[in-house]
C-alpha cells in the first residue's frame, strides 16, 4: 500500500487473519504502518493493492459510510464532539442510523453503565467537563453504540497517565469479555500489547514480522527486532502476563 505520491509503501506484504471475537493488537514503533493498516479496515485509507475482507466480503465492495457505521472507531485524541453532550456523543451513530428516540435513550444508558459512568451525573455533561480517562470511556461507548461486531482502536490509551491507562485497559478487557466484539488495537506499548492481546501482531517498517499469542512472542521472538522490542529480560515481561488485570 502506498500513499499518493509516496515512493515507499507504508505497509506491504501483509497477510493477516483476525478471528471473530479475537483481541488482536498491532504492536510496533511509530511509523511502522500499524495505524495505516488499521485504517484500511474501515476504508479511511484505501490500499493501492491487496484486499481487506470482513466476513469474506471485500470492504471495497461495500459503501464506505455504511461500512464505518458498522465498525467501532476509537482514536488517541478521542475526538468527542465538543458541542454535543455525553449522551449525544454516545448517540451519534444510532442517530445516523435513524433509531427512534426511546431506543437511543435506552442504549445510551446501557452503554454508560457498561463503561461505569453514572448516567444521571454524566448524560448531559459536555466533553470539556470530563477528565482524560472519562472522555476516552465515552469515546469507547460512542464506538460501541450501534453494536458493531468489529472495534478499531488506534492508540486509545496513549494520552492518559499510567494509573488511568491501567484502569482503562482493565475496562476494555472486561468489555471484550462481556460483548465478544472483535477488537483490532494499535499500540507502541509492549506491556499494553502483552496484557490485552489474544494475538500480538508485531510490525516493523511496514511489514508484519511476527504473529502469535503474547507468550509465544515473548518466548520465541521471530528475529532480533522482536527480541529487542519485547526487551532483554523476558522473565520480567512474563510477570506482566501472569499478573491479572486489575479490576476497579
Amino acid at each position, binding site marked *: 500500500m502506498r500513499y499518493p505520491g509516496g515512493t515507499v509503501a507504508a505497509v506491504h506484504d501483509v497477510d493477516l487473519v483476525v478471528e471473530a471475537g479475537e483481541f488482536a493488537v498491532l504492536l510496533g514503533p511509530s511509523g511502522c504502518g500499524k495505524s495505516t493498516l488499521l485504517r484500511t479496515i*474501515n476504508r*479511511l485509507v484505501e490500499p493501492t493493492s491487496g484486499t481487506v475482507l470482513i466476513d469474506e466480503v471485500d470492504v471495497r465492495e461495500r459503501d464506505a*459510510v*455504511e*461500512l*464505518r*457505521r*458498522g465498525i467501532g*472507531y476509537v*482514536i488517541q*485524541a*478521542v*475526538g*468527542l*464532539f*465538543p*458541542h454535543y453532550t455525553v449522551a449525544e456523543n454516545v448517540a*451519534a*451513530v444510532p442517530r*445516523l442510523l435513524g433509531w427512534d428516540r426511546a431506543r437511543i435513550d435506552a442504549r445510551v444508558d446501557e452503554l454508560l453503565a457498561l463503561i461505569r459512568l453514572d448516567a444521571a451525573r454524566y448524560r448531559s455533561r*459536555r*466533553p*470539556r467537563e470530563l477528565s482524560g480517562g472519562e472522555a476516552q470511556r465515552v*469515546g469507547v461507548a*460512542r*464506538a460501541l453504540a450501534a453494536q458493531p461486531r468489529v472495534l*478499531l482502536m488506534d492508540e486509545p490509551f496513549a494520552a492518559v497517565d499510567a494509573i488511568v491507562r491501567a484502569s482503562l485497559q482493565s475496562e476494555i478487557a472486561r468489555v471484550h469479555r462481556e460483548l465478544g466484539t472483535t477488537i483490532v488495537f494499535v499500540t507502541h506499548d509492549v506491556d499494553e500489547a502483552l496484557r490485552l492481546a489474544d494475538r500480538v501482531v508485531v510490525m516493523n517498517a511496514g511489514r508484519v514480522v511476527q504473529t502469535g499469542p503474547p507468550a509465544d512472542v515473548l518466548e520465541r521472538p521471530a528475529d532480533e527486532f522482536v527480541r529487542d522490542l519485547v526487551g532483554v529480560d523476558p522473565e520480567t515481561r512474563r510477570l506482566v502476563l501472569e499478573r491479572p488485570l486489575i479490576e476497579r
Partner: protein
Amino acid sequence: MSYLATHLARVGALLGEHVVLVFVSLAVALVIALPLGVLAARNARAGTVILTLTGVLYTIPSLALLALLVAVLGLGRTTAIVALVVYAQMVLIRGVVAGLRGVDPALVDAARGLGFTARQTLLRVEFPAALPVVLGGVRIATVSLVALATIAAWISAGGLGTLLFEGISTNNAGKIFAGALAAAALAIVSDLVLRGAERAVRT
C-alpha cells in the same frame, strides 16, 4: 441635539432603513461567503484565488466602488446592497476559512471513522466547531457595513447617511449629529449582540 428631539420619528424611520440595508446585505453576503469559504478551506488553490480576489475587491475605495456600480446599475438601494455585499465578502470568507481550518483534525477523523458522510461531517461537526470564529467574522462585517451603509445615501439608497448628507449640504449640525449618533449606536448594539452570540456558541 434639538433635531434628534424634534424629528425622532424621521430618525427612527431612517434607522429602520439602515438596519434593513445592512441586514439584507449581510444575508446575501453570507449566502455567497459560506460556500466560497468552505471551498477555500478545502482546496488550497481555490483558497488562494478566492482570498486574493476578495482582498483586491476590499481595497477598492468605497466611494469609487459605488460610483462604478452606479454607472452599471443606476442609483438606488439595489446598487448599495451590491456594494455592501462585495465589501463583506473578504471578512466573512476569512472568518469561515479560519474557523474551518482551526477545527481539531481529531473531530473530523472521528466523525468520518464513525460513518458520517462528508456533508454530515461538515454540517454537524466542522461547522458547529467553527461557529464562534465564523460569528467573529460576521460581527466585524456587520459593524463595518453599518458604517459603510451611511455612504449609500449618496446614491439615494436611504438610511442614516441621508441625515449626514442633508446636514452637510444645508449646514445643519443637528442633523449630522443625529445621524452620526444613531449610526454609532446601531454599530455598538450590533457588536454587543453578536459578541453575546459568539459566547453562547463557544463550547
